[in-house]
């Protein structure tokens, strides 16, 4: 049993309100585990404690009680962040630096230097598809490009864990698709990913497990597939079925205890349709 990528045990965070006696409990006795190699979706409405949990895991905010560990190391220790790459929501980088300079800056913060750093930066730029924009200032990047440079920066030191906060928010469908593909690419290379997003459709496509937070508590948690499969329903998708075949199937259903809920032409997703049309 390998060390979990993230291990949160009985995490509680209480914020005092200045000048008032009551306090806000942002996270209440939260426990969850993210195994290495998983893509984990952390979901919840605004104010559910998602961001707070993420910040505690990253050591940006201290916990009131409980422990959080990254690959076995306490998150409040600076060293634990060797293994983590973080992409914040609406990332903002120094406008006057070029893409490559930005990556080199963050690389230096991780202890990288020299030709090794240069090569690494170039590799990452290629990976996220920004090699042509490497010498352009960040100030001129589009939203999608910013997210991609953000991903590259998060990966600069080859972390085993990525924490992504709304990685596709505000990005157009094509850019979104690219980012999703990148995330799946990272996953195939064994990187663990903790994803926070409001875009549930996208979460559904890429996450293995999800945890749903509500008012600071974990209300549902588990394999995505298990959570959203409707247990007692089955979906058949047929190709080239003749009307006679369909009639026979319906007759069979009517004889059994099952009920036909829906017969319709499956739809492609609007996303796929849009991409087909705009990228042809």
């Amino acid at each position, binding site marked *: 049993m390998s060390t979990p990528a993230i291990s949160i045990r009985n995490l509680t965070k209480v*914020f005092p309100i200045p000048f008032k006696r009551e306090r806000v409990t942002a996270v209440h006795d939260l426990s969850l585990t993210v195994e*290495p*190699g998983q893509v984990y979706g952390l979901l919840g409405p605004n104010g559910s404690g998602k961001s707070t949990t993420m*910040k505690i895991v*990253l*050591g*940006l*905010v*201290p916990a009131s009680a409980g422990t959080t560990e990254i690959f076995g190391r306490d998150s409040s220790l*600076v*060293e*634990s*962040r*060797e293994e*983590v*790459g*973080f992409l*914040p*929501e*609406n*990332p*903002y*980088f*120094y406008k*006057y*630096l070029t893409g490559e300079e930005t990556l080199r*800056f*963050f690389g*230096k*913060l*991780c*202890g*990288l*230097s020299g030709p*090794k750093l240069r090569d*690494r930066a170039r*590799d*990452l730029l290629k*990976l996220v598809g920004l090699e042509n924009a490497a010498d352009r200032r960040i100030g001129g990047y589009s939203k999608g490009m910013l997210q991609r440079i*953000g991903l590259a*920066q998060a*990966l600069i*030191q*080859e972390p*085993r864990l990525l*924490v992504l906060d709304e990685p596709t928010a505000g990005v157009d469908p094509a850019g979104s698709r690219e980012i999703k593909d990148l995330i799946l690419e990272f996953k195939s*290379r*064994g*990187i663990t990913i903790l994803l926070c997003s409001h875009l549930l459709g996208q979460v559904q496509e890429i996450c293995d497990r999800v945890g749903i937070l509500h008012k600071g508590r974990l209300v549902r948690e588990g394999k995505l597939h298990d959570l959203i499969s409707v247990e007692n329903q089955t979906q058949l998708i047929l190709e080239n079925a003749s009307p006679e075949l369909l009639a026979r199937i319906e007759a069979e259903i009517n004889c059994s205890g099952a009920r036909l809920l829906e017969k319709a032409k499956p739809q492609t997703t609007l996303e796929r349709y849009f991409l087909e049309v705009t990228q042809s």
Partner: protein
Amino acid sequence: MSASNPATLPIHPPHKAFSPARILAIGANTLLELVRLKVFYFLLIFGLVLIGSSIFMINFSFQEQFQMLKDISLGAMSIFTWLLAVLATAMLLPKDIEDRTLYTILAKPVPRFEYLIGKLLGVLALVLISTLVMAGLFAVVLYARQEIVIAESLAQAGREATPEQVQEIVRGIKASTFTWSLVPAIIAVYLKAALCASLTLLISTFASSWIFTIVTSVAVYFIGNIQSIARDYWLAENGGTALTKVFLALVSLLFPDLQLFNLVDDIVAGNAIATGIFLKTAGLGCVYVVVYLFLAYFVFAKKEL
């Protein structure tokens, strides 16, 4: 890019508890950011002030001219370095927090104290460069004036002047322009600005807005300039009521004594400063910077971001 195979060594070197390279990266970045804000344009204003004032004072004797040129230059240097130090530092943390770049930086294995030191070093480097440029401009203008005055004086002395008299005239003029003690004066100006930068950083760690930081820093500056007066009253025999004594004690203990760094006025007046005294003063300035930085770290270390 390798997979997370435990057998493969990760690309990053093992984490160091203290890394000058990290501090340098943050410091250089801070300096660049401040430079891009075009703060150096104010140096143009400084240059104009210098040249303007030297032209304006043509009707005075050369001694008066040099006196006033030096006073105005060093006074302008004083105020520009102080303004630069306070304004640049006040914006450091709020800007990073607002832009969320602070999160991306601290999400890397960067200890918070290295972040603070790096930021402060960036500002100190900016102020240092500005000081050097201003000192250079000042030297150029002063030298130009000196040469003009020498030429005029020699022309006035005429052809009957003996070589000895000529030498005396030139020596007299040069003695009123450049003196070596201008160097410690300028260093003292820089140290005062550095102290104010460190203090502003401390205030910004718990301030709610950068306006609050600036206002507080300015207030502390003014109080710091009269701290020595308060201190003398407090420690004098016939002080005042107990309440006054307590008040004066608080002022004396909490605020820095900035008068110790106001050496410019007297050095320009011709006071030379002994190396021993200067080193002690400079050392005290450095202690202030370190103490304020340490306190800033103390507040920032557990700050909820």
